[in-house]
């Protein structure tokens, strides 16, 4: 090797070595990393999910139908749908309002408001339920007054609704706030100077700009509203056919050793989760351009 060629060799080798280091030292490491992730996913996600469907179908189609069409099960499905139908739109409206206030205005206590929005995420669902028992239960602050006026919140549908709204509140707001903040207010100000009314500005400019974030928020909010267990369990009182939602119904069946029926109803909930996931993926794939455009310009 002559002295003259040495610098060239060093120059040639350097980038290749750097590139290899960035991509990982060897294929073995890659395989191990991918393998570990896949094994974990199989063991803790796919296997349980599959077992739900397998158990649900173990006694055959007839038993499956029976379990789902049984009056208490139907009542639980109806109640779950009712709760979601009220809680989700409610949280969409409040979430939009909160996100709007945080993204478009400067005010005192803004960071406090943001932490409050996160509160339901950081508080255990059981506590979220107990809070309402403390407020509206028979021994709670408003209990005597409610009893005197013949109103029932705890161990009734309104209590389940309150607990669900509380637990699912952050989903819509959390999706919207960062997106709205990154968009700023120039679009809205433009629309207003062009003569649009505030409502028109909201519906033709703001809402289309954030529609994808809003949609994700709604999907996640809905999945949680239908699947919430802890908070709802505390306030529901589990009166069969009256205050049992689907997750509670599953638990009752399971505790009574009616495994097949429990898994049949559970498979409906799991199916909902799958539909949510598929919907989200399909939309992301189908409207990738529109989503990218609405997020980045």
């Amino acid at each position, binding site marked *: 090797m002559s002295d003259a060629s040495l610098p060239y060799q060093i120059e040639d080798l350097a980038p290749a070595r750097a590139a290899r280091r960035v991509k990982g030292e060897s294929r073995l490491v890659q395989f191990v990393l991918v393998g570990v992730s896949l094994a974990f996913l199989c063991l803790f996600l796919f296997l349980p999910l599959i077992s739900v469907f397998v158990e649900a179908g173990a006694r055959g189609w007839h038993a499956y139908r029976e379990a789902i069409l049984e009056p208490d099960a139907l009542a639980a499905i109806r109640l779950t749908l009712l709760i979601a139908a009220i809680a989700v739109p409610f949280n969409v409206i409040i979430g939009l309002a909160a996100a709007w206030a945080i993204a478009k205005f400067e005010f005192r206590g803004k960071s406090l408001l943001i932490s409050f929005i996160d509160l339901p995420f950081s508080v255990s669902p059981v506590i979220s339920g107990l809070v309402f028992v403390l407020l509206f239960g028979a021994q709670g602050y408003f209990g005597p007054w409610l009893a005197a006026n013949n109103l029932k919140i705890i161990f009734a549908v309104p209590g389940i609704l309150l607990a669900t709204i509380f637990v699912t509140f952050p989903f819509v707001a959390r999706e919207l706030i960062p997106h709205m903040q990154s968009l700023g207010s120039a679009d809205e100000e433009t629309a*207003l100077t062009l003569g649009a009314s505030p409502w028109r500005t909201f519906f033709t400019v703001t809402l289309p700009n954030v529609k994808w974030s809003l949609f994700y928020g709604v999907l996640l909010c809905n999945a949680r509203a239908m699947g919430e267990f802890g908070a709802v369990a505390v306030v529901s009182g589990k009166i069969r056919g009256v205050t049992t939602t689907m997750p509670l119904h599953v638990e009752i069946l399971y505790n009574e050793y009616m495994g097949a029926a429990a898994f049949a109803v559970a498979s409906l909930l799991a199916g909902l989760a799958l539909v949510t996931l598929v919907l989200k993926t399909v939309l992301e794939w189908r409207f990738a351009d529109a989503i990218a455009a609405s997020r980045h310009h």
Partner: protein
Amino acid sequence: MSVAVTIESVEKRFQNFPALRGVSLDIQPGELVALLGPSGSGKTTLLRVIAGLEQAERGRVLFGETDTRDLSLRERRIGFVFQHYALFKTMSVGENIAFGLKSRPRAERPSPAEIRKRVSELLELIQLPGLEKRYPSQLSGGQRQRIALARALAIEPRVLLLDEPFGALDAKVRKDLRAWLRQLHQRTGHTTVFVTHDQEEALELADRVAILHDGRLEQVGSPDDVYDHPATPFVCQFLGDANHLPVKVVGSQAFFQDRPVLGGLRQNQGGPASLYVRPQHLRIVDDAPLALPGVVEHLRRNGPLRRAEVAVDGLPKRLDVDLASQVAPAIGERIRLRITHGNLFAAA
């Protein structure tokens, strides 16, 4: 003569920061006015106050004879163009331009056919015909800027307000758009106010330039006026390079370190003063009664000109001198400089 926009001692603060401190300005119909200043000078705030996007704490803004505080944003009928265009990205170009017309109350709203016609006329005007169906993400920066302008023009605004209209574009596009905007203004005659921090842009484009500094209006005048006769040291330095010489005025002459450097002064007040001289107003001379000796320390190219940095005894900063002739002095050469024009300000 009627006035299009009157700004009367407007004041505005953000928390404790005074953004505007008593700004007054009259804008004539059809005029193209530049609000020029460094960042933080209050120029964008002033534009937003005129638009009604910010409320002044004191003072008022009149459109003609009408106090704008009595007008809603819609009634103000202003065309505001943001620095980053703020095109509605979920709408096509055509829908963007039509937005203002479609937002009118039903009684005043033109028919869909009329709106379509108006949109294609405006696209014609901004030299982008046939782009109705495109989306903003499919356009270049310069095209987006022009679409934003067409959208603002669609509502036949009383005043066109442009916030750093070329700020987000690269240098070449910026130059082209500048000439284009000037032409458009000559054809349409809209009263226009635009904000810029680029003094070259302001001087080239505007009928009048208003220079802001720390929330105050330093000077208003034609580009020639403000450039040749700056009212304050700030304006003088902001509009272009200027060498600063501390001098003493006695009689009709200015003295730098007991040496007369500039004569023929008409100012009567003597005493210490600041003399500002632009690089092109320093000439190398063989010998003259009023001259400043110095040593050439550095030569460099400054666009089409060559520039010498000349060290002068008693000055901490070297003087910038534009060389008029092709024959440049050598580095280290002793030369004499004559001041052909300077701006004198009494020392504060």
